[in-house]
Structure formats: structure tokens, C-alpha cells
């Protein structure tokens, strides 16, 4: 039975995963915490928390709130900065038998290029995920991912400074996500991951004010799964690079839905925070499904839900 997937077929270096299950950026830290709880080497890949050129403190409290089957967050890209990541985190990753993909966020197009340049040749880094979809920062983030021209320019800036496989993580907070997807693929993206969180808010009726310190946040979790799934279905038919589906996946059946919609691989975030074992349960569930359905290669399932 073959669960392995290739995420960057058009890139010289390629990015082969032993299975299609990855952790989603921002919900796995730098991977070390999960390494203590589960056998991370059984995962397809780990995507690290978004990194910026300089360390960031993130947003004020309150940063999190639970909603119906969902989680609204506004962390604000708190991170250690790329230099510390290269010095302290990457050497640990280089000893792991699981690829680590680094999610990068810039405050300008040039900063994205600079981040890619700094990560070039760093042992332990297997790929880059461009974050043009964080809804919780004033500068950069989602603003770069709402315009096809700017998203393409960011992708080009990164591609021109790295030989690493590059995936672009898209925001769902746009009118037509396929338009952005086409633009970043034309600019050289090796793969596309989607979706990041949906913008939302909560009002505390006792204080009569927004609950989150930064007013709005990004919604994740099972609540957003149907939206994410449909966007994967649309984007996978609009472009010809691998799609990494993300948004509310908590079980093997959820993962299968995304694969059948057209995703080559999937990412799990909120579900992993609640149940650290969830990604491994999904790997096992996919194996069981393929076994019982007589499927030899997971690629046979990609996009089968498309109507003729």
C-alpha cells in the first residue's frame, strides 16, 4: 500500500512525504512539543509556526475564544524570529526523520524574499510555506494574499531566492480564491495550501465590547470544514500543482473528503491541539480505508469526487 505523496513535482529538489498528513502552521509550534507526546516521525511533515525576520511579541490578551465547534484566535504571529529559528530549532529538525516546512511571514514583499534567502541551505528545512493569509497582523499577512498581483509578487520574490519547494497558503477571505491560486501558480508556486482561518469576532455582552484583544480573529476547527472543502474542490480544478487541504479536519473521514475533493495532502491544526494523537489516528484511518477498499496508492483517490 502506498501512502506517499509528492508535493513539489515541478521542483528539482521535490518534497516527498511518507504519507499525506501534516500539522498546520501555528498549531504545532516548532514541533518539539509534539515530539514529546507522539511519534512525529510517523507524520508526513510538520509545518512550523510562522516566522518573521525579527522576533514578534504577538497580540494582547484575550487571544483565544471557543465558538460552536470552532476556535477564534488572534495570536498575532508571536515568534522567535528567523535567526533564532536557524540557530536553535533547525539543528534539532535536521535529526528528525520527518520533513519540516517553515511557514514565513513578511511585512513587505522584500522581507519574504529575505526570509527565503536566509533559509536557503539550512539543514533541517525541507520546504517553505508562504503565509499571505494571517488575518491577525496590521502589516503583511492576509493583505498580501487578497490581491492576485501582490500574492504573485510575493511568490516570485521567494522563488527567486530559494531552491526549496515553495507552497503558498491562501486566505479564504476573498471573493474568488481560484483567481489568487492561478496567480501564485503562474508566479512559480510548487504547491498551494488552503485554507487559512476565516475572519470573525465575538462580542462580550457583559462588557459590551469585542472579546478578543485585537477585535477580530481567525476562525478554525470543524465549524469551517465545509467551506474549506469546497474551496479545495474549486482550486484543485483551477490549477495543476498539488493542493494541501486544511480547515477543520479531525478524522480520517474528514481527510478522505479533502483528498476526494482534490487535495494531494492535508494539514491538521485545531484538532491536533485538542487531541495530539489525531494526525496519527488519521494516518491509521487512511490505511484502514485503503485496505478495506482495495486501494493500492492514495493517489487513486485524489479528486475522485469531481463530477465529469
Amino acid at each position, binding site marked *: 500500500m502506498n501512502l506517499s505523496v509528492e508535493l513539489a513535482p515541478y521542483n528539482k529538489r521535490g518534497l516527498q512525504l511518507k504519507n499525506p498528513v501534516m500539522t498546520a502552521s*501555528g*498549531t*504545532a*509550534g516548532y514541533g518539539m*512539543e*509534539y515530539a*514529546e*507526546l507522539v511519534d512525529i516521525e510517523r507524520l508526513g511533515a510538520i509545518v512550523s*509556526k510562522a516566522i518573521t525576520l525579527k522576533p514578534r*511579541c*504577538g497580540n*494582547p*490578551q*484575550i*487571544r*483565544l*475564544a*471557543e465558538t*460552536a*465547534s*470552532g*476556535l477564534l*484566535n488572534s*495570536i498575532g504571529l*508571536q515568534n522567535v524570529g528567523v535567526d533564532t529559528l536557524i540557530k536553535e530549532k533547525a539543528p534539532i529538525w535536521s535529526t528528525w526523520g520527518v520533513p519540516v516546512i517553515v511557514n514565513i511571514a513578511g511585512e513587505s514583499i522584500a522581507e519574504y524574499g529575505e526570509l527565503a534567502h536566509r533559509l536557503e541551505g539550512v539543514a533541517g528545512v525541507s520546504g517553505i510555506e508562504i503565509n499571505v493569509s494571517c488575518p491577525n497582523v496590521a502589516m503583511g499577512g492576509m493583505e498580501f494574499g487578497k490581491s492576485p498581483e501582490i500574492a504573485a509578487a510575493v511568490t516570485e520574490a521567494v522563488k527567486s531566492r530559494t531552491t526549496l519547494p515553495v507552497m503558498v497558503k491562501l486566505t479564504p477571505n476573498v471573493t474568488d480564491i481560484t483567481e489568487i491560486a492561478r496567480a501564485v501558480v503562474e508566479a512559480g508556486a510548487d504547491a498551494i495550501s488552503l485554507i487559512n482561518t476565516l475572519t470573525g469576532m465575538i462580542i462580550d455582552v457583559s462588557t459590551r465590547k469585542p472579546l478578543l484583544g485585537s477585535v477580530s480573529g481567525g476562525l478554525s*476547527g*470543524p465549524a469551517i470544514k465545509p467551506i474549506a472543502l469546497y474551496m479545495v474542490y474549486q482550486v484543485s480544478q483551477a490549477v495543476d500543482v498539488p493542493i494541501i487541504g486544511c480547515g477543520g479536519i*479531525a478524522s480520517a473521514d474528514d481527510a478522505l473528503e479533502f483528498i476526494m475533493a482534490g487535495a494531494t495532502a492535508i494539514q491538521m491544526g*485545531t484538532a491536533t*491541539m*485538542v*487531541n*495530539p*494523537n489525531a494526525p496519527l489516528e488519521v494516518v491509521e484511518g487512511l490505511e484502514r480505508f485503503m485496505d478495506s477498499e482495495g486501494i493500492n496508492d492514495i493517489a487513486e483517490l485524489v479528486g475522485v469526487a469531481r463530477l465529469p
Partner: protein
Amino acid sequence: MKQVLATVLSNSEVLPDIHLLCSPAPEIASESMPGQFVMVRTSEDHDPLLRRPLAIHRVSPLASPIQLALLFSVVGRGTKWLAQCKEGDEIDLLGPLGHGFRVQSRHLLLVAGGIGIAPLVALAENELARGAHVTLILGAPTQDQLYPAHLLPPGIELLVATEDGSDGQKGMATDLLANFTGKADQVFACGPVAMYEVMSSQTSIKGRSVQVSMEARMGCGFGVCLGCAIETRQGMKLVCQDGPVFELEDIIWRGEKGGD
């Protein structure tokens, strides 16, 4: 840190809207230190979605297997679900998590505001067993809401404050603090933020080692989501991983923050 499915041994309302849940969870209990917590799943599906952080109230090392006791307020849908768990039900626990109390003395003063008694009982039990002298100031709005004295470990020196004066001294737990800080080398507190803010302005505890257990909304409980980050004089710290126990003087209270 382990994720375990544990069977509920007992779960009862020991005070109005406050439950005491006991469960054998040797993998967690045997590793836990006073002040640490567990993340408890409070649904069988995705709603409520997140685990709830609950202080480790007590560990019974002599029980076989080792038992873990959790004391929690029923405040929302998650804790309501947990309050309805019965003997024989399974609960999903992740822990022990965070850094607990750091004891370096033999004369301890504990200050509990309401449900803040939860982690302090484990601390008192541990330290009394080591031969330390432990004084507890226990505060609650009324006598009915006071943690039952018969559940406290024997040998503890108990002082009570109630807001309506129905038991002990009338007033807040912090009102009693000044009279007793002189006897203690270290102070350990757990209660609402308002209690800590009063403590941080009290002259009687200036210059003393005071550790407080902080509370925050948590997503994961083990340092990956960064949802519980707070500002301290040592930089941004995670309540779940760097805490929940912090030095009182390291915390920057909302009123102190300048600017906007």
C-alpha cells in the same frame, strides 16, 4: 506529559457549583507536582471543542493505582459536561502540564481565594508530609462557599475570611495577609486576578517570595498555540508552559501598562 483515558471513580458537588472528581490516572499522577494542571476533554465530539485546564487538586499516592483529584467550578458548557460524568465514565486527560510551585522553605503561607484552593491542597499535603509548617488563609464570599475544613490535610493551620462575616474574619483573604506574612518564608497564592492585584500593592509582602497561579484561556495547554501568552517583566510568557505559577512581582497588571 501523557494523554490518558481515565475512569471516573467519584464525582460529587462538594460546594455549590463546585465539583470534586477522582480518577485513577497513575501515568499522570505519579509525575505531577503541586501547581501543575491537566487539560480535560469535555465532550465526545467537537462541541465544546477545546479541553479545559483544571488544577491538580490532590494526588493520593497510597491508593492503588495512584489517584488524581480535580476540583472545578461549573462555569460553562464544558465544566457542566464534566460535572455530569458518573462513576465508571471515561475522561480524556492530558498532563501533567506546566510548572508548579517552587518550594524553598519550611514555613509556607498559602492564600486561597474561592476555587483558588484547588492547587493549594496538593501543595499543603506535600509540604506537611515533608515536615514543613503550613498556614492557609482561606477566603470565600460566604460560609457555604468555604472549602470544607475536614477535607484539608491534618496539621495545617487554618484561617478563614468570608466577605459576609458568616465564618472567620469578615473581609477578604488578603485582609488577613499582613498579620501572618511575618511567620512565613514564602507565600503561595491562587485566586482571582483582583486578589493578586491587591497583594501586589500590599507593603507587608514587598520583598518576599510570592508565587501565584495564573489563569488564562488556553487552546492546547502544552505550548503550541501561544493563546495564553501574558506580558511579564521577563518578556512574553506562556501561562500553560512557563507557568501557571509565576513570581507575583514578574506579572505586569493591566493597570500598570502605559500608553493606550
